[in-house]
Structure formats: C-alpha cells, structure tokens
C-alpha cells in the first residue's frame, strides 16, 4: 500500500469521524435544550406551587385573625355580664362566705379579661394595627407615677423599690407614653412576681444625645429567681414561660414579654435580658425620645370635671338580655330613666316618638345593627345627641368605623360601672 493510498484512507476515516462527531454534538445540544425546557417547566411549576402555598398561608393567617376577633367578641359579651353582675351583687348585704365567693369571681373574671386583652394586643401588633402616637410629656413625672403605683406592692412583699434617674436627662419628651407605660408595667410586674427578697430597681440612663433626640436606656433590675441561659432565648416567644412550674406557682400567660418586645421594636429599640440563676434579672432597652420644645404641656382636656350626671332619659339599644339587665340595674341605681330597643329599627322608631338625652347602642344586633341605625339617626333624626357604641369588638378598625358613622364615643365590653359613669358625666351638661 503506498503512502498516498494510506493518507487517503486516513483522511477518509477522519472525515467520517468528524461527521459522526457533529451528529453526536447536534444530538447532545438537542438533549441539552430539552432538559433545559424540562427544567424551566419544573421551575415554573415549583414557583406556582410556592405561590399557592403562600396564598394558603396568608388565608390561614387571615382566618386566624378573624377567629381571634370573633372569639374575643364571643368571650367579651358574657364576660361583660359576669363582671357587671358581680359588681351589682357587691352592692347587696352579703355574708362573709358570699363576699369571699364574689371576690374570687371578680378576681378570676379580671384575669380572664387581662388574658383576652393580651391576646388582642398581640394580634393587633402582629397585624400592624398598633401605631405609635407621640405626645409631649414630662418623663420624670411619668416615672414617678410608675413608682407610686409599684412602691406599695413592693412594700407589701417586703421588697425595696428604687427609681434611679440620670440627672442629664431632659424632662420633656415627645413619645408614645401609653406604649412605654405598657412595657414598663409589664417588666416591673414580672420583677415583682419573680422576686421574693431584695429589691427592684428601675434605672433610667442617658445613653447619648443626637440632634433633637436623647437615647435613653431603661433597665428593670431585680434580685429574684433569675432565668437560665437556655430560657433567656425563649421567654420572648409567645406563650413561653421559663419552666412549667412557673404558671402553676406564679400564674401568667407567657404573653407579656412577647408583647413588650414587639412594642419596643416599634419604638425603635430592642428588649434584652441579662440574668443569672438565683441572682436576679435585668431587662433593658434603649429607645430614642425626641426632645420636646414646649415646656408647658397641654394637659389632657382641662375641662372642669362635672360631678353630677344630668342625663335623665337614655335609650338603650341592646339585644342581649343579660347585658340589658346589667344596664337596667345600673341606671335604676343612678335613678336615670331609660327605654329599651331590641334592635336598630326599634331604636329609630323610639327616637321618633320620645325625647332622649343619650343613646347607648350595641353594634351587633339582629334586623338592623348599630352602624346602620346610627347612620340613619344622624342623617334623619338627630345630629347632636350623644350616641355611645357598646361593643365587644375592640380593634382599632372598629373604633374607626364607629367614629365614621357618627358615634360620639366608644365603650368596649366588658366595662365596669365606673367606666359607664365617667362617660355619662362627660356628656352631662
């Protein structure tokens, strides 16, 4: 075989190999493309699945929120009656045994009420319904008031209560007093609960000042039972108590700290804890408080407080018999006349035929609810008469809606006699 022939055979073979290689590559490219298509399809499917899952989660959350709102309503209405009746009962001559029973009843009802309020607070914070409302106030005064609330309780347990305020702190600040108050009361309350001897200190220090803000560190320090390292990470979670015996021994719901933590976050800080078992605990946070220019603080409604209810005729629109009875008893006691409507329509009819000084209107009623009735009253019958909404719904939204349709005020159930009395005084001329 000569050289040329050999070379030709080689070239032939290589040429065929090249064609073959190209075919293989084409095929590979096709496979690659197909698997890419497949992959894209899968990604799409997964994305869809994720979206569906997210949707479900959101719906579940909504359902949970509605459930909370509804439950709170369902619980508040009968609780209102229980607390109300118990207060009415305490006006009677009771023997000691009966008094004791009644006290236990009132005490338990109050605990239940606290729990419901905590749950509602938490759900409000979770759903972003709590917003920071700043007002100008004297921080030092505010702290002294807190001290005056807790000092007697501490003394009763044989504990010292110390309030230490950094002298560099400027008195007048712009902040959400209610939220700050809520947190401090919770922290000091816990400190009192978990300390058997020694002292509780509220230490307030200036952290730093920046432009018109002073960053202030609040420390609530106790010499109580302390919290282990493990537990320190968990106690800020909902419904968590340091150990199972806690709830038996000290009570509580395990909600206080998680609410406080969220509030402090809302106020621009972080709630933290330092603690040593059986040495004590310190809960602390630093938040910015804006310095307030005005030294004179607008005192809340300097209106002279009236001391006598001048309201004579009240229209009660309420379908629940227990609540009707509670109201009737109170009004009888205060010698105020009233008429009762079972629903919104009856209320409108009564208003057309009689004169009233004030209306107490339940929101949820059959036939015509309180919103519809009030809208109609405002539009056609009486634009000025005070109409007070009585409701177990306590969400900010409900209050907002009540205001919009023309309610003058809002009393959330359960309410005690004093709260109603205050309102009646407020609308006495």
């Amino acid at each position, binding site marked *: 075989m000569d050289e040329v022939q*050999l*070379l030709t055979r080689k070239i032939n*073979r290589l040429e*065929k190999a090249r064609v*073959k*290689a190209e075919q*293989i590559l084409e095929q590979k490219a096709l496979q690659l493309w197909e698997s890419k298509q497949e992959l894209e399809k899968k990604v799409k499917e997964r994305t869809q699945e994720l979206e569906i899952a997210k949707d479900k989660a959101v719906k579940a959350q909504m359902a949970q929120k509605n459930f909370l709102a509804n439950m709170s309503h369902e619980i508040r209405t009968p609780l209102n009656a229980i607390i109300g009746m118990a207060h009415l009962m305490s006006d009677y001559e009771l023997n000691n045994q009966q008094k004791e029973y009644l006290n236990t009843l009132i005490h338990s009802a109050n605990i239940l009420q606290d729990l419901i309020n905590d749950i509602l607070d938490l759900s409000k914070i979770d759903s972003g319904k709590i917003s920071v409302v700043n007002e100008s106030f004297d921080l030092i005064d505010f702290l002294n008031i807190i001290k005056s609330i807790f000092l007697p309780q501490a003394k009763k347990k044989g504990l010292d209560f110390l309030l230490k305020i950094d002298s560099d702190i400027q008195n007048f600040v712009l902040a959400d007093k209610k939220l700050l108050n809520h947190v401090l009361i919770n922290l000091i309350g816990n400190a009192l609960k978990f300390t058997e001897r020694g002292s509780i200190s509220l230490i307030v220090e200036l952290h730093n000042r920046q432009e018109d803000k002073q960053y202030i560190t609040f420390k609530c320090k106790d010499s109580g039972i302390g919290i282990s390292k493990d537990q320190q990470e968990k106690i800020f979670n909902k419904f968590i108590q340091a150990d199972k015996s806690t709830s038996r021994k000290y009570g509580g719901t395990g909600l206080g700290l998680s609410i406080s933590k969220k509030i402090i976050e809302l106020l621009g800080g972080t709630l933290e804890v330092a603690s040593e078992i059986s040495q004590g605990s310190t809960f602390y946070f630093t938040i910015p408080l804006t310095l307030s220019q005005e030294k004179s603080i607008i005192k809340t409604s300097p209106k002279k407080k009236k001391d006598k209810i001048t309201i004579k005729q009240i229209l009660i629109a309420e379908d629940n018999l227990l609540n009707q009875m509670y109201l009737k008893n109170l009004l009888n006691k205060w010698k105020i006349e009233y008429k009762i409507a079972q629903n919104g329509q009856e209320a409108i009819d009564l208003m057309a035929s009689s004169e009233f000084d004030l209306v107490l209107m339940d929101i949820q009623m059959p036939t015509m609810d309180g919103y519809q009735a009030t809208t109609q009253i405002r539009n056609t019958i009486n634009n000025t008469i005070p109409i007070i909404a009585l409701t177990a719904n306590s969400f900010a939204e409900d209050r907002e809606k009540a205001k919009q349709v023309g309610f003058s005020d809002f009393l959330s159930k359960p309410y005690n006699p004093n709260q109603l009395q205050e309102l009646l005084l407020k609308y006495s001329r």
Partner: protein
Amino acid sequence: MKGVVFVGFFELVEKEFGYEMVDKLIDSCNLDSDGIYTSVGTYDHSEMVQLVTKLSEFSGIGVPDLLNTYAKYFGKTHLRKYESFYQEATDTFSFLESIDGHIHVEVKKLYPEAELPKFSTNKLSDNKLELLYSSKRKMGDFAEGLILDTADYYNEKIEIQKKNIEEDGSQVLFTITKI
C-alpha cells in the same frame, strides 16, 4: 467506552508505530465502528480489547505493558485537561482518594454513558495507601499506568505492589508506597 480512550489510543499508536499500524489494526479487527472514533462518541468496550490484543500481536509487546504505557500517555495528554481536579488535591494519595467519590462522579455527570471502575482506598500510613480496583472491564494495568502518571504530576516517587484479588483481574489490589 468513551471515544476519547480510542482516540488517545490511536494517537499513541500513530506516534510510536506510524499511521500504517493504525490502518492495519482497523483492517484486522472486526469493529462495529469501522474504526471511526470521535472523542465525544461512545463505543463498545470489546473494540478496545481487540485493538490492544492485536497491537500486542503485531508489536510483540505484552498487553499489560501496552495498557500501562498507554495509561501514562492518556494521563499526560487527556486527563491533564481537567486542571481543577488536580488542583483540588495536594498529592498523589489525596488525588487517588478523590477519584471514586468525586472525580469519576463528575465524569458520570458529564458523560452519563461512561463506564467507570469502582475504587476504594485505605490509608495505612502517611506513605502507604491501599487502592482496590473493581471493574468488569479488567483494566487494572491501565489503572496502574494512571497511578504512576499521577505520581509524576505531583513530582512524587512511588512504588506499586499489585495483587489480583479476582483471578480474572476484575478486582486488583494496589499497595502504593511513597519513596
């Protein structure tokens, strides 16, 4: 068997014996592929057996020697393209230890049709490693060449003891000593 093994083989044969030998091999073997190999294709393993056996016949060199030599050539020319595998390991032993769990795993991803041997390793000491080769393709001699080439790459001197665990060569135990 992957085409690259055949392509590499013909390269070496042409280099050592001239193209005439390649042509002669193709002619004298009964190859389904007609000897038309491309590195991206896949061919029957028996074709490699035929080719090596015939080359041994024509050249008078034993099959083990041929495979051993070819493996060293294959390592230097074709495996070196996979730079990153070499860089990930620090020496001969760590490289050999990474074949079964890493290198051949990646190879399989790239070429799902590749037929690869199983390796298990046992480090006896800092300078002694046992490597057990298992494959029904019985290419222990090829493996030996690749091991030697690996040591070359890392500039290490090694000694290999080889022992057939299975008579037919489908399992071979290498005891490798650094010297």
